[in-house]
């Protein structure tokens, strides 16, 4: 069960142009391959209508996606993976950021992109769920933050 990639970005509704915010890859691919996958998959996802299911097939793997307002979260995984639990990994990540930033919005992710990566590292490692307790993840992140604050005040 390896989610191969988790990417999130937003769609400008008017221009239907999708701009990628962040991407995290769990498999080794060349930049060219990555670009192609992102392009193909975002196109597929953007063409989906509401009330369709959250999964679709792409080549030999599966794409699980979910939309939060204008933000799309897209995860790629193996075709044998459990789709719904992958979907809830995405949700748990969103909740985790919500809890950390306090009502997260796109700008939080943009201006503190490094935090978005740090939170993800506490949640997923090697593409697998590492910790599903919100409290535990938050504890790790605030520990990091307080260490950082201490260093800055010196």
């Amino acid at each position: 069960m390896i989610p191969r990639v988790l990417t999130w970005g937003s769609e400008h509704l008017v221009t239907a142009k999708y701009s990628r915010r962040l991407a995290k890859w769990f498999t080794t691919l060349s930049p060219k391959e990555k670009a192609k996958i992102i392009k193909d998959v975002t196109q597929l996802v953007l063409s989906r209508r509401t009330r369709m299911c959250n999964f679709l097939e792409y080549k030999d793997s599966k794409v699980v996606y979910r939309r939060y307002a204008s933000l799309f979260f897209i995860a790629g995984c193996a075709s044998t993976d459990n789709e719904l639990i992958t979907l809830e990994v995405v949700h748990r990540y969103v909740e985790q950021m919500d809890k950390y930033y306090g009502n997260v919005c796109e700008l939080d992710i943009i201006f503190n992109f490094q935090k978005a990566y740090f939170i993800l590292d506490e949640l997923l490692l090697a593409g697998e769920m590492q910790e599903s307790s919100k409290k535990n993840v938050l504890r790790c992140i605030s520990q990091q933050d307080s260490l950082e604050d201490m260093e800055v005040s010196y």
Partner: protein
Amino acid sequence: MSSMRGLVQFIADLRNARARELEEKRVNKELANIRQKFKGGSLNGYQKKKYVCKLLYVYIQGYDVDFGHLEAVNLISSTKYSEKQIGYLAVTLFFHEQHELLHLVVNSIRKDLLDHNELNNCLALHAVANVGGREMGEALSTDVHRLLISPTSKAFVKKKAALTLLRLYRKYPGIVQIEWAERIISLMDDADMGVTLSVTSLVMALVQDKPEEYRGSYVKAAQRLKRIVVENDVAPDYLYYRVPCPWIQVKLLRLLQYYPPSEDSHVREIIRESLQQIMNIAMDTPKNVQQNNAQNAVLFEAINLLIHLDTEHSLMMQVSSRLGKYIQSRETNVRYLGLEAMTHFAARAETLDPIKKHQNIILGSLRDRDISVRRKGLDLIYSMCDTTNAGPIVNELLRYLQTADYGIREEMVLKVAILTEKYATDAQWYIDMTLKLLSLAGDHVNDEVWQRVIQIVTNNEELQAYAAHTLLNYLKADCHESLVKIGCYVLGEFGHLIADNQGSSPIEQFLALQAKMITSTDNTRAMILSSFIKFVNLFPEIKPQLLHIFRLYSHSPDSELQQRAFEYLSLATLPTDDLLRTVCDEMPPFSERASILLSRLHQKTAGTTDKKTWVVGGKDANQDKKEVLMAQNTGLKRTFTTIVNGTNAGTNGTAASPASSATGDLAGLDLSASSAPPPPNMASAAHLTPDWDIGYNRLYFKGQGVLFEDAQIQVGLRSEYRGHIGVVKVYISNKSTFPIGSLTTTLDNRAAPNLKIDTKSLPDSSLSAAGQTQQTFFIEAHGPFTDAPTIRISYLAGALQAYTLQLPVLMHRYMEPSTLSAEEFFKRWRQIGGSPLEAQNTFGVVAKAKDINETFTRQTVEGFGWRIVDNVDPNPKNIVGCAVYHFATGKTGCLLRLEPNYEKMMYRITIRATQEAVPQALAKQMEQKLAQGSTSDHYA
């Protein structure tokens, strides 16, 4: 969180840029600035961090960043955490596992792995888990492993170490050492759910490659699942919208699918309880989307396990009725998953009837508004097809093909082609459907499909005339090029079969093909030319027209066509047609090989990382290991019950047995057939713990006592035997002053199937100081056996402790004395006669044995369950005995004659029994025991 002002300003600038060009300008300006700063070289840590952050942002926006990598590497060795953290982030984003600078960070990573500060351990683990490859794995895996198993590691370090090891294992399996298995499995019992979750992921990957070494994980998974699902043993933090950690549930349920169903009734019972509970919970109406998804994620994984087990019929009944509802659900996700689960069910089920009940709804799913659902529908329809419903299903698929999405058509054509071939009962139907398929599918046809039609027609005589006739009709009208290809080939080979029919004369066949030459591609034209040379041989009456075409094409600009036409022209104008006849001789049947269609179909699914436990297709497809390995052995020769030209099905052969060459070809693909030596089985007799034999010998004839004891634990035994059944209880007591965890027992039964062992209960996995737990086994004799079962007991007390002990369970436990008079004894002895119902051994006692005497000998004989019959043998020293050996399907009478020679310290033993193999096994066992002599203290 602290922010870097320069960075925030920079990001704001980029966001305010109105056009892409302005943004680029700003980026280039900043890059130039940073390059300058880095060149200057006198930056402090904070500045370096800020600039690397800017570079990261630029990189994330999709720009190329080809400098600053060294500065990022420098940050890693900073003493400040925030700088180190950004350095590591940059390394994971900029670098990949083969990056040339990666070797520079290996030493810094090792330093952080060894650091006493856990946060630094974590950063280093993140880095390895993100960019680690084989090289890094070889350098650092022992450090990562140490963090995983060290008793002083904190939970949040352990879980990261487990997943880091998983990453390294995926990149290079060699880094996980064989000896680690038992220790890694024991971590599945960790009190921390995060650790259990992560370790389970690691174990799942290992189990797929090394099922034997990680067999212990099966029972652990079953137990843990029950504790979570049935006993609700989950910390509140790990409830996800009221569902107890759905992630671990899904993983445990999946792990259980990687093994065949357990033989142990107790283990099956625990799994059954968990599955039933999951089914019950799924009846609750969820309060929100998250609970609904989490519940269903677990439910569908449970359904997959149920289908895999294939033994829980009552649960299966519940499932199949619910699946019927799911595929009609208003929720698209549920429809999708319902169809997927049903496809899995079709792959395993004895009968397709429960699925066929829903045939109309399933066919309706081909018209679902969501393509994801339509694809799943197609998979299911393909799997549920058999001879009874192939007609309507193929018809419906052909109707749907015309409106189907382009993305799905190619696969559909392949599937329809396979179905028509597999379930055709009528030659005409096969030809009609396949040709209709090709005409409807247009360009969405793989070459394999039309090639396969040619192969089938060539190999099945009864199809040839009808195929030629039908194809000619297609050729006369407007038809797709793939039909032209089949048409020209079939007419070239079999056109003469229909030449006397109205409208099918040679010249009409010729004209039909000639008309197609104009619009066809060069490839097809070349094929038509080849058909024409066959026509020269078949129909000399149209030779002038054919020669004309050859002449025409010998001027073709295409070199292939030109050469072909020219060669054919020469061949056709030779003075004699001997050569022509040889060249155009009828084609021999195609060799029986794996179907090109199936290998094409499975090409798509090959290469996924997870082990597939089933393939899309019916039960027969799944029972065939080779199809699961991408191909199947469908012979080219089909059996049609209605034969066009009236010959008997028998003469046409039933579907031919798979050619051995096909099996040979596939042997190389068989991943399970490894040449590596079998993994060590730590529970086996080869790994017995020193001094295991003291307790074993002490309890050899006794029902209860201490089997093993040291400073930490005591293992006691209590057993009772009646007839062929024995109940053995193993008591494990913790003698130390601290609790022990992950107590695990593994039984190794070398005597199976003649000795059957069923686990009735499992020991508690944790044991407090001075605590005791027990495990019960039912051990049944099913025949003669000579190997006693062994048990591996392992537990965590800081480090892993493990013992392998042999249980004193041998044939004598199932022997019962029986009384015979001397007369009867002789009568029976003679009746049974010699070999193979007799075994006789002569042997001396082993050197270290002190003595043998009559008391010892008689006690041993009686210990084995013999009734000693006195005054039978003329020599009073000799011992004669009778007994009955009980086993599950009956009992066998046994007679013994033992001739001791106390002076020479030797015995001769003769045993006769009414069943083969019994005397040999008994004699061997008694020899082993007698040869030890009376040194053993328990005879004193």
